[in-house]
């Protein structure tokens, strides 16, 4: 697997995790415990959104590096 493929896969993994978290937040349970659970899932959702920003930034940096390296050709030293 090339480097950029690994980070692209990581981006897809995080996106899937976010979709699953959205599913996990859809409960119709009515109680104090359910309210706490919903709050915890929303907090987790916020954390994973920040994770997504980090992973996408890494993916972008890796792809930029690959593009620059491809343009530059093999090193001379």
């Amino acid at each position, binding site marked *: *697997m*090339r*480097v*950029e493929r*690994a*980070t692209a*896969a*990581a*981006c897809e*993994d*995080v996106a*899937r*995790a*976010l979709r*699953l*978290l959205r*599913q*996990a*937040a*859809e*409960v*119709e*349970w*009515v*109680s104090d*415990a*359910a309210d706490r*659970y919903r709050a*915890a*899932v929303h907090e*987790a959702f916020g*954390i*994973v959104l*920040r*994770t997504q920003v*980090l*992973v996408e*930034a*890494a993916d*972008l*940096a*890796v792809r*930029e*590096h*690959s593009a*620059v*390296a*491809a*343009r*530059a*050709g*093999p*090193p*001379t*030293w």
Partner: protein
Amino acid sequence: MSAGDPGGAGDPGIAVYGGRGGTRANLEDLARATRALCAAAHELDAAATSCSSAGWRLTGPGSPGGSLARDDACLMTGIHDGLVTLSEGELEVARARARALAALAEVRRSPTGPAVAAAHLTGLASALLSTTRIYAEADGAARLLVSRLSRAVGGVAGEHPLGLLVAGAIVGRLAIAVAPAALLGASVVLRRTPGDLVAATRARAAQLANDALTEDAARIEIILAGVGSGLVSLPPGVQPVAAEPVPAAARLASGALDLDPHWRRRALTVIPAVESQHPPAPRDLGDLARRLSALYPDAGGRPGTIGVERLDHPDGTRSWVVEIPGTQELGLGFGENPLDMGTNVRLMAARPNDGTELVTEALRQAGVGANEPILLLGHSQGGMVAMSLAATAAFTSRYRVAAVATLGAPVGTVSVPRSIQVLNVEHVQDVIPALDGVPSPDEPNRTTVRRDLRISPDPRDRFAGRTAGAAHGAGTYARSAEVIDGVDGPSLDAWRDAASQVLGDGRATVTAREFTGVRGR
């Protein structure tokens, strides 16, 4: 413990349990949420692994600029000492690579990185799993304990009937010995003659019995579980503990009925009414319940008669409503009317009976198609018939039952497929739904509405709540059905969605027929 939707619009006596909004449905919901959280944690773990792999590949051989990366310190030293000279392009690659490595390092180290987030979600899933278990265990635990205790006491009494008789005799003799002294004391205190007191007590006996039936229906349910357990334990030898003692006792009674030629089942003839009516299309439970109550003989209906309505919708589709009234005779199977106590016993025992045969034959004669959705509505025994049919594989494989509604029926022991939405309506003051010895189960497709008649804004309901007979009446349930039509909530909405497959948008052309069951002599 049941999660529900207490409180109906304008009627404080309404409480909704089970169904889509019930505890069990919600526990299933939570189990699904737990699985989703675990899967999300798994994805984040995979993302963390992919990022580590990317970092390793970026610094390893074969990567773009990989030779640059082999020994950054060495390279930097070489550049510094003037031993290595990089082209502008190579410098650009080195800078891009450094940025990528820094970004990947941030992914690895950050408290919001995928590995940390995965651990967070795993912890949340674990906590949720524990909560779900606690709720599942606590749900109905207290009630289950009392019910089990009642069954255990009943079972012991049934296994030792002689001991029960001796204990009863001792208590009886003590009561007889103490009664004259107590009567004399009470007459002195109340300044009335003992004769007057005995006469007053006899006059109030019916009222006391009525009060017990209307105010203690829930306790009677638990007591009946014990009585049923006792009856099941009566045969010689140690009997296994029945999980559902009332149906088990009913099976014994049904077997006894079959022994006597007078009580044995006889051939049932189902006669269709010659005339058909075209009433307005039913729109809701209230409409259906009013039509059902009109089938009773005291409301002008023919004895032993059920209603079958064909609904032809504007889009060309067809559906059916079946209205089944309750017990009309107290006989044990010797009369012509099949809606009697004999049918009740056989229904409770889940044995072949005239009620289900009447409906099945009526549907055959009416020409109901296999894919045409049916709504079964029954009051009292009719509710037992409706549930029994919905629980019978031979019936549900032949007909498409979309929804069932029961009014004042003891159907807690009947299980129907999850694809069928069931609504059980009970009055708090009605003892009949308690006769099965168990409460209606809390299942995703099973919604129970309990209505306390004593706190209804309608004086007719409050009056009905004072007598056991009126609390069970079809007319009283028809009024409750109208009230329920005004109550919102996920559980009731789920039933309404299923019922709408049959009722449509209220523009159907209705052909109503009646079918009368008559037992042969």
